[in-house]
């Protein structure tokens, strides 16, 4: 594989979140990602890794969390690999945005934001590993405020979609 790729292995410890965000910022700067793109990945990966540490590994595991980022044809892919019991973070019901802001429960917000920030999200469990894939088509600094609602297909990049 010649595509630019970087990997970080994290311990099951919330203090590792800071290393994760530094890793994403460094990857982003090295590959010319906009501030918006770096923010989208930082937010999404922090949310997912925090959930793995708190609910998957329940805080005290010796097992690692491996995050890989790559960029190809204007799309950034991130993969999160952990060995906690099988859990699909995207299986939870969508936040009900028809409820009034007064009535809407605030829980589940992190995963909702992750789905909104990414163009596609996917999950599969294979050989004892939870694998979460995130794809986002890069937005330039002038790409405006449009964040696609719902999960859209990744345009022009059909070679790397790991559909479950």
């Amino acid at each position: 594989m010649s595509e630019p790729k970087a990997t970080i292995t994290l311990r099951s410890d919330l203090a590792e979140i800071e290393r994760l965000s530094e890793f994403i910022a460094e990857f982003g700067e090295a590959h010319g990602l906009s501030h918006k793109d770096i923010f989208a990945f930082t937010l999404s990966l922090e949310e997912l890794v925090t959930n793995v540490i708190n609910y998957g590994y329940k805080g005290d595991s010796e097992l690692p969390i491996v995050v890989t980022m790559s960029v190809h044809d204007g799309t950034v892919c991130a993969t999160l690999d952990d060995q906690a019991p099988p859990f699909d973070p995207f299986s939870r019901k969508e936040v009900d945005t028809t409820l009034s802001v007064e009535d809407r429960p605030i829980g589940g917000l992190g995963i909702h934001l992750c789905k909104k920030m990414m163009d596609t999200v996917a999950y599969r469990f294979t050989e004892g590993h939870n694998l979460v894939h995130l794809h986002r088509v890069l937005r330039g600094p002038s790409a405006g405020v449009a964040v696609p609602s719902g999960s859209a297909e990744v345009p022009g990049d059909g070679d790397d979609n790991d559909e479950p």
Partner: protein
Amino acid sequence: MHFKIYIPPPDSTGCEIANAASAVVVAEGVLNSHTSAEAQRFLQKQVQLDVTAPRHVLIDAARLEYLNSSGLRVLAQIARDLRKTGRKLALCGAADPLRELVEVSGLAGLILKYESVAAAREALFE
């Protein structure tokens, strides 16, 4: 992890801070799961202090670098508390990604967004 939340000194923004109808709070740095408890304590105090003379809370977010779901939850909770006495919470001068985040979170009805503290004042107290 850098995070600061405070009441700005009167001469720092060039505008009148001791406004009868709004309280300005400056939030700087990273508002995430590590710092949201501090933000909550501080903002909750503002909500309670102001009970006798209710004021809107305007957060000067020009130097807020990061905000995640944990920070958003705190802002939404404070906004709900403020609503009980007819007050509003506004995020002022936040960077584009943070404004978009509020938008996609579905909480934009609770957490108002303005270009600046001055713009918020103009919109809220016209």
